[in-house]
C-alpha cells in the first residue's frame, strides 16, 4: 500500500513536486521561472529545494546561459515515483472517508 511522504507533504514542497512532475522527464525548469510559478521568495524556494535535493527527489543543474549563471531544477526518477505514491496514498485516504 502507498505511503504518505513527510518530506513531500509540506505545502510548498508538494507544489514544487507537482510542478516538476508535470514537465516531461527530459525537461528542467529555471529557478526564477519556478519561483514566479509558485509565487514564493528566492530564499523560501531555495530552502525547500535543498530539502528535496538532499532527499534525492530533485536534481539541480547549474549552468551559464548567455554568460549568466542559471540553476535548472528537475524531478528525479525516484522523486517522480515517491510523488506518485504520495498522491496514491492521499487518494486512498479519501476513498476510506
Amino acid at each position, binding site marked *: 500500500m502507498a*505511503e*504518505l*511522504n*513527510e518530506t513531500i*507533504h509540506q*505545502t510548498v514542497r*508538494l*507544489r514544487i513536486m*507537482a*510542478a516538476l*512532475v*508535470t*514537465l*516531461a522527464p*527530459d*525537461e*528542467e*525548469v*529555471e529557478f*526564477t*521561472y*519556478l519561483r514566479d*510559478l*509558485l509565487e514564493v521568495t528566492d530564499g523560501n524556494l531555495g530552502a525547500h529545494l535543498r530539502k528535496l535535493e538532499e532527499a534525492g527527489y530533485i536534481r539541480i543543474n547549474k549552468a551559464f546561459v548567455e554568460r549568466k549563471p542559471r540553476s*535548472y531544477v528537475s524531478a528525479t526518477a525516484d522523486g517522480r515515483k515517491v510523488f506518485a505514491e504520495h*498522491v496514491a496514498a*492521499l*487518494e486512498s*485516504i*479519501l476513498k*476510506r*472517508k
Partner: protein
Amino acid sequence: MNISPTEAEEALTAIQAMMQKTRRAISSSGAYKFLILWGTIWMIGFLGSQFLPKEIANYVWIGLDILGGILSAVIGVRMKRGVRTSAPTASGKRIGIFWLLLFFYCFAAVCVAWPVDGKQFAMFIILFVTVGWIAMGLLLSFASVWWGLALLGLSLFSYFLLNDYFYFIMAFVGGGGMIALGIYVRNRW
C-alpha cells in the same frame, strides 16, 4: 504520518491546481499567442482582399506575412524560456527558425508559381500556415493538431466549392475562429 480526509482532499486540490497552472504556463503558453496573432492577420488580410484593389491587397498580404513571421519567431524564442530540454526539437530557438524558414518557403513557392490570382495567393499562405500550425501542435500540444486540420479542410472546401464567398469565410470563420480559439485556450486550457 497520519492526516485527515479533509487534509488529503486539500492536498490533492493543491496538486491539481499546481499541475494545471504549470501546464498553462509552460506547455501551452505559446499556442494561444500564435492563434490570436494569425487570426488577426487572416482577418485583416482577407478583408483587404475583399475590399481593396488586387495589387494593393497583395502588398498588404506580403506585409502582414512578414510581420507575422517575425512575431511568430519572437513568440517561438520566448516560449518555454524558463524550461530547457535535452530533446533538441522542442527548443524555442528552433521553433522560431522553423517559422522563419516556413515563410521563406512560402514566399519562394509563390514566386515559382507566379502569376497567381488573389485566391490562389491566399491558398498558398493558408497551406503553409496550417502546415506550421500542425507541426507546432505535434511538438507542443497534440489537441491543436485537430483544429489545424479543420481549418485546412474548411479552407480547401471554401476554395473549391464556395469560391465566391472565399474571402469572407476566411476572414470571419477562419480568422475569427482562430482568435476565438486562442482566447479559449488562454482562459480554459
